[in-house]
């Protein structure tokens, strides 16, 4: 059987779970939860990192010695220029040449600014970064980001940290249909069922932080999410049945009738 793998920016990943390292109650729970998630790609805000000495950083130091792909993000940036500037800082520190473009202007909703996101993506692609932009769940902007050279496109399910789940599954389905690069759902998921739903819509992976870090038991939730990703992916590949209005017997009653 053909193996179901995910490749982004030339790198084949073992897990479809991208996890954020922020918000965990303490370093012990953080470390254990990341381990339980099985995630290989870790994201964190560049502005929270000690760029002068990344191995000493208060977050990254707990993750030493593991083979993770770092996906630094530009969270906090309010326009393309700021995002590009901190992306360059991150790369110069030797952390990674992957970058999650995240540009928001409204401090209450933190919704992405698609126009500035597109500008930053174009620029960073030109500079040779592997760019994964976080954007709104609009099929047109997602396609434009792909055309700009994004290695994967990451539409939000709902505003960051809200846990509202997929507000517009129709759009997300369209985005997947149109896409020529992996689609990763980023932001707004709350529970394992949200995650499964996203995977069943055919997305290539999910990126989460709050639903794991703020769970009562983050380690257990990380495992739950990882299983949900797997279940959703398998269900998508296996192909669900069509919906019918009325019952049809699963026992195949006719086959047992004496004739």
């Amino acid at each position, binding site marked *: 059987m053909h193996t179901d793998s995910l490749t982004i920016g030339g790198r084949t990943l073992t897990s479809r779970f991208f996890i954020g390292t922020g918000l965990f109650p*303490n370093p012990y729970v953080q470390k254990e939860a990341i381990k339980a998630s099985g995630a290989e790609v870790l994201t964190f805000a560049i502005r929270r990192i000690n760029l002068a000495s990344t191995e000493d950083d*208060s977050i990254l130091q707990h993750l030493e010695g593991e083979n993770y792909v770092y996906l630094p993000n530009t969270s906090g940036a309010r326009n393309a220029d700021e995002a590009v500037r901190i992306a360059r800082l991150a790369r110069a520190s030797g952390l990674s040449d992957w970058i999650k473009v995240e540009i928001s202007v409204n401090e209450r909703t933190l919704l992405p600014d698609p126009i500035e996101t597109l500008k930053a993506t174009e620029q960073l692609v030109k500079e040779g970064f592997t760019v994964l932009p976080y954007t709104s769940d609009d099929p047109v902007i997602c396609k434009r980001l792909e055309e700009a050279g994004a290695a994967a496109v990451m539409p939000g399910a709902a505003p960051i940290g809200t846990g509202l789940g997929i507000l517009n599954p129709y759009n997300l389905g369209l985005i997947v249909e149109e896409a020529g690069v992996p689609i990763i759902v980023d932001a707004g998921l709350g529970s394992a069922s949200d995650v499964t739903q996203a995977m069943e819509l055919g997305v290539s992976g999910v990126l989460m932080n709050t639903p794991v870090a703020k769970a009562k*038991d983050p380690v257990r939730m990380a495992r739950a999410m990882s299983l949900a990703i797997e279940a959703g992916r398998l269900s998508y590949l296996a192909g669900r049945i069509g919906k019918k209005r009325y019952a049809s017997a699963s026992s195949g009653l006719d086959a047992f009738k004496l004739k």
Partner: protein
Amino acid sequence: MKKQQVIVMGGGIIGLSCALELQRRGHQAMVLETKRCGGQASGAAAGMLAPYSENVEGPDSFFRLCLESLQLYPEWQRAVREISGESFEYTESGSLYVAYHDADLLALEGRLLWQRQYGSTGMIVEGDALYRMEPLLTGEARAALYTPEESHIYAPHYVRALETACRRLGVQIYEELEQLEIVEWQNEVVVHASNGRFFEGDQLLICSGAWAQHLTDTLHLNIPVYPIRGQICAYEAESRPVSHMVFCNQGYLVGKANGTLVCGASEDVAGYDTTVTEKGISRLLNWNKQLFPFLEKQTPFHSWAGLRPATQDGFPLIGPVPGTERVVLAVGHYRNGILLSPATALLAADYIVDKQFSVFDDAFLPNRFI
């Protein structure tokens, strides 16, 4: 309610505060400490009373408990001074949370938006205004969030004064007990110490911080509290070169009245080991000179470590143990034990005396972990 005999396991800041409050309400508290009072996380703390800087995400139950405790502090620390006859530093310095990038401003503004609704009169300061507040701050600082409401305390003296206050009011304190075993807790309370002595009481209050997880089997209750090592160092500083508590994304600096500048904290997972490591301290030195360049030429004169009692969801466990009317937990205060000492003392005493919580919801109840 008739006078209750309350055994308090643990003589840290939380145990002593609870014992003092119970004694003030006319009950008899007895503190059992395996080593010396204030010898663990309590004495190692930098003593920051900073709920706004420590809680940057939103006004959850934990923030509200921290805020309540901050607001109790002026009155509470006055009472500890009066009863003990001892003094300790309590400085209403305000705090600065320093941002290096434009990209930090969105987060600081988001924080202000909700923190203003909860008593902060904070503001974002930049340029000359910022350097007037902290002249030695790095030129790389983009801006800072100034929160005037935050203060700090000198924890080693505070915990000593609390102990004296307890003794003066008649709290019985037993130290160096090495190991304690809860022999009976359902119909009466009996605790056995490894020196052979038995202690008996009506109620049991557990304030043993990072050690509370060992009671999981005894109390038939999941107590997910883990030790996180926090390493701190201090500089000798003649003229208080830093006048506010200054936070950045890596840690904090706070100048004490005794002429020391305290820098913390480097956290790691090391079990119950309180050794200071070179790596732990060098991490502090690597970022603090970026924040205050004059530190480049200084060497800390002292460094130490304490075990912070962290919990699975980041909230402390305060409240009754299910299945009995006799056992109450007050553990898992992590980085905020000093700040939370008055609020915890009142909550625990309310429960022990009245069997009810008056103010807070059930976010801290110990039975929340399945």
